[in-house]
């Protein structure tokens, strides 16, 4: 295992880190206030106010229900979908797609990131190619993907995986490369090498960066899934939404959109939970 680094590799990685970690830092800053109930309440004031205004506007007839149904109608639609069980089917299918896409793309990204981060030969062999492919938007592949995989599950899985792969790959690579060399030197002089060195020093050192990648990826999963599900599907939130559009059921369309928002938020909470747990040693997360 080589822990050394060439200057060009570092520059590459640092450039990536600069673009990737900057937003994460600002997010973290706002998180700190969350422990205060008052602040949490305040952060909900705007969305609640908007919904109230929306309800009033709909009831007063300023908004046609064709454009935007009133919130109660959306709630009713959601309730109806939930009771008939339709909602859960779609929700389950979509979540399953997101999870499997994340697992495949994220797993591969982590694996290759660890590989290129750890072994210089792997970097030489793979990194240039991956950096090139990275610049292709995953969604630009749609026509090709449909040709390859048809409109089945496979195409959706592929799109989500490709999109999720890169944030995790890049941040893992960068994380491994930016582990403090002093710590590695220390650990080696204390007799650590091979897997113990990896487990006790390199992986934990790379973890903050890897988790930034996970958070980015979790955000991307839903974006990709929305598009993938609207192309063609027989189930899923995207299918439900597109279907409702055909029948001009704007309330169901809105339920679908709100579900995506909710799921996105849920994924973010999950990622934050992981950070809080795994990075509890980090002063920035205490």
């Amino acid at each position, binding site marked *: 295992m080589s822990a050394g680094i060439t200057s060009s590799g570092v520059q590459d990685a640092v450039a990536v880190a600069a673009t990737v970690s900057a937003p994460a830092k600002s997010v973290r800053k706002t998180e700190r206030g969350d422990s205060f109930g008052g602040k949490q309440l305040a952060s909900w004031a705007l969305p609640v106010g908007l919904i109230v205004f929306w309800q009033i506007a709909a009831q007063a007839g300023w908004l046609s229900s064709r454009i935007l149904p009133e919130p109660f109608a959306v709630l009713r639609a959601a309730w109806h979908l939930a009771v008939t069980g339709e909602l859960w089917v779609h929700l389950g299918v979509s979540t399953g797609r997101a999870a499997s896409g994340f697992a495949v793309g994220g797993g591969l990204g982590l694996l290759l990131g660890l590989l290129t981060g750890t072994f210089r030969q792997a970097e030489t062999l793979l990194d240039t190619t991956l950096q090139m492919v990275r610049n292709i938007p995953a969604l630009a592949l749609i026509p090709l993907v449909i040709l390859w995989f048809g409109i089945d599950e496979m195409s959706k899985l592929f799109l989500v995986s490709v999109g999720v792969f890169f944030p995790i790959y890049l941040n893992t690579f960068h994380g491994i490369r930016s582990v403090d*060399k002093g710590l590695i030197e220390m650990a080696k002089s204390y007799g*650590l090498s091979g897997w113990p060195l990896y487990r006790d020093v390199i992986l934990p050192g790379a973890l903050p960066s890897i988790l930034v990648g996970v958070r980015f990826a979790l955000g991307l999963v839903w974006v990709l899934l929305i598009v993938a599900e609207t192309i063609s599907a027989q189930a899923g939130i995207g299918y439900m939404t597109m279907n409702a559009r055909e029948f001009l059921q704007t309330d169901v369309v809105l339920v679908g959109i709100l579900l995506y928002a909710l799921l996105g938020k849920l994924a973010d909470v999950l990622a934050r939970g992981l950070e809080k747990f795994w990075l509890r040693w980090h002063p920035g997360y205490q």
Partner: protein
Amino acid sequence: MMQNNHVETTEVKNTAERQVRGVRGVRVQAKALSKSYGGREVLKSVELDVKPGEFVAIVGRSGCGKSTLLRLIAKLETATSGDIAFAQDGHQPETRIMFQDSRLLPWKRVLNNVALGLPKSALASAAQALRQVGLEERGGEWPAVLSGGQRQRVALARALVHDPELLLLDEPLGALDALTRIEMQQLIESLWQKRGFTAVLVTHDVQEAIALADRVVLIEDGRITLDQTIDLPRPRARGNLAFAQIEEAILSRVLQHPASAPDSTLGDISLQKSVSQVQWAI
């Protein structure tokens, strides 16, 4: 001297072997040791013989090669020519290093940092080592909440829990405030007396060198230019006249030799980390 006192409870291994030898420390011999970086010779044929259990301080200006010598002894780098030999029987001595920055793993709790590289069953001896540096009750905390001095004490415990035959100290007190420094010096001295390991301390503080070492070695321009035995009784009072005279003599010896290179290592620690290891060492 008290090096012969080998009674120790926190020991991890080698009891039998050590009792046979009496002194825990190992002999260190540098023979015609040279090291160059990119054509620049940092150490020029250095000869140094450290007796078992001896405490040797290496002083010198920044960039004189003292850290490089230590890193060579620690096998963190390989010599360009020459050789370092340890005990006659040719075994690799148990060597531990203390760096200027504590280099604790921030994601391991203090106690687990001390137990780094030891089997799980050694947690008790890690706790014992923590007790010896006076931080027993901080074992469950993250290194991030400790002060600089406390971190160095943890680093010292981490080094000692392995019961080293050779302890290398690379300006471990350089970043501490004056009071914490003196405290740490006393702690290091007492642990060294108790355990009898061989100690090599690199420092730019002549007073620190005289307070701790049996022998002060001055390196200038990659060569040893002074090798003075310090014969003061321990513990050494800094106000002592003999102490002051020796300090004066060594300091004036250091100062009569003009600086050969601009200060490069005294700067900021973060800079040292980002610049390559090679530069850090010179």
